[in-house]
């Protein structure tokens, strides 16, 4: 089963920090149900966010994952949380 933001509130909080910083978004607007569009996050902003996530959590995020299909902040956080958790649970991680 996929792990969601609600299962790991601490990790979700850290991811929101990255979205706010790299996406240059107002923190109050970065709610879970805020759409990517309403935050004016363009594809290059998502690139910057994913790159910062890779740096911060020392994971590789493939470019053909579900990250680019995220419709809102919750989707994005879930996709990232799920990926980080899977990567970190690999035996060689």
């Amino acid at each position, binding site marked *: 089963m996929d792990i969601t933001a609600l299962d790991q509130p601490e990790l979700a909080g850290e991811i929101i920090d990255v979205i706010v910083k790299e996406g240059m978004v107002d923190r109050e607007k970065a709610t879970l149900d805020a759409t990517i569009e309403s935050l004016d996050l*363009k*594809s*290059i902003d998502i*690139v910057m966010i*994913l*790159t910062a996530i890779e740096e911060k959590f020392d994971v*590789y995020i*493939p*470019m*053909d994952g579900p990250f*680019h299909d995220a419709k809102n902040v919750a989707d994005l956080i879930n996709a990232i949380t799920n990926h980080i958790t899977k990567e970190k649970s690999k035996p060689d991680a």
Partner: protein
Amino acid sequence: MRDARRIIVTGMGAVSAAGLGAPALWHAAREGRSCIGKAQFPRPYRGRIKIAAQVRDFDPAAHVTPAELPFCDPVTQYLFAAAEEALAQAGLAQAKPMGPRTATIIGTGIGGMHTLDNGLHLAIVEHGRPDPLTVPRLIPSACPTQLSIRYGTTGPCFAVASACSSATQAIGIALQLIRAGAVDRAIVGGTEDCVTNSAMLAWEALRVLTPDYCRPFSDGRNGMVLGAGAAVFILEEAECARVRGATPIVEIAGYGTSTDAKDPVRPDAQGAAACMRNTLADAGLDAEEIDYVNAHGTGTTANDMTESEALGLVFGKRRLPVSSTKPIHGHGLGAAGALELVVTIGAVCENVAPPTINWRGVDPKCPVDPVPNEARPMRIQAALSNSFAFGGINASLAVRRAEAA
């Protein structure tokens, strides 16, 4: 005014992942044969994207003299080979010096990327002594100036550096110079080789490279593949070419360009549509007269969606055959428009729309007829070739069958 001076192509040449020669490139495109493979680098490479359409087994000594070689990055070497082929076909191999009525205009996004990569590694990592010819070899303008020196072309000479629209703009501006009467002939085209260690890593960081297959306009597409190479064309004013008995291959009927003025990386459908409309107007062609479009079609989510929308704005609901041959020869960046003009000319000359390979299903956001997976024999009197670049620079060329000219 346009009717006064028509511009024809009398020769073309190419070096690409398909090998040496314009025919090799066209045949690979027509047959849907991908030339992408595992990328090779002179030093250890840590990138996660392992594939590219590199020029392989190129022998510089076969095309570049020992005196020229120290001044030639691989991009200039490819250009020499492509120019030799183009001038031979045009019947101008012995026409040296070509003089002040010939322009030399070459598009390249970066210029000597291999020289940069090697030079920086030598200087910063190895603390070595730089090659004294590093600068003259890497400057983008080395591409056209080396040609001018070899062929004695003393007319206008410059490089166009408009990223992925470079070659198309170089060819287009030459068309305008000939049409305006500033010159009678031009050696034009594009060249690029950014398949180097650092450039591949930089492209990977942008997250636009596919780890597996480039599948333009297709459901499930996930990015582009870098390609390398060069293509050169001899453009001539039709009457000058006729007088010397040259055979026209096709007419370059029109050129159009536009600028989005919006976003450094995100393409814009309105800007792309304006570019295609400008091209049609310049060529004096109606949208209905275009039979085939060789798309920019990078295989990225954003480009293909936006280009499809733009094509809809220009051509309406008509199911116009639109293919991208980038899964064959890769995305040649500054050379892309030249490599794809070779393919577009092939399509017009042989009445075959080359396929978009690796296509596996409809993406509702790309409502075009992508000529999926197999070439389509069809009547092609006129065709369009699109190039769209970072920064929002759009450029297109319209090609028309020579006998229809």
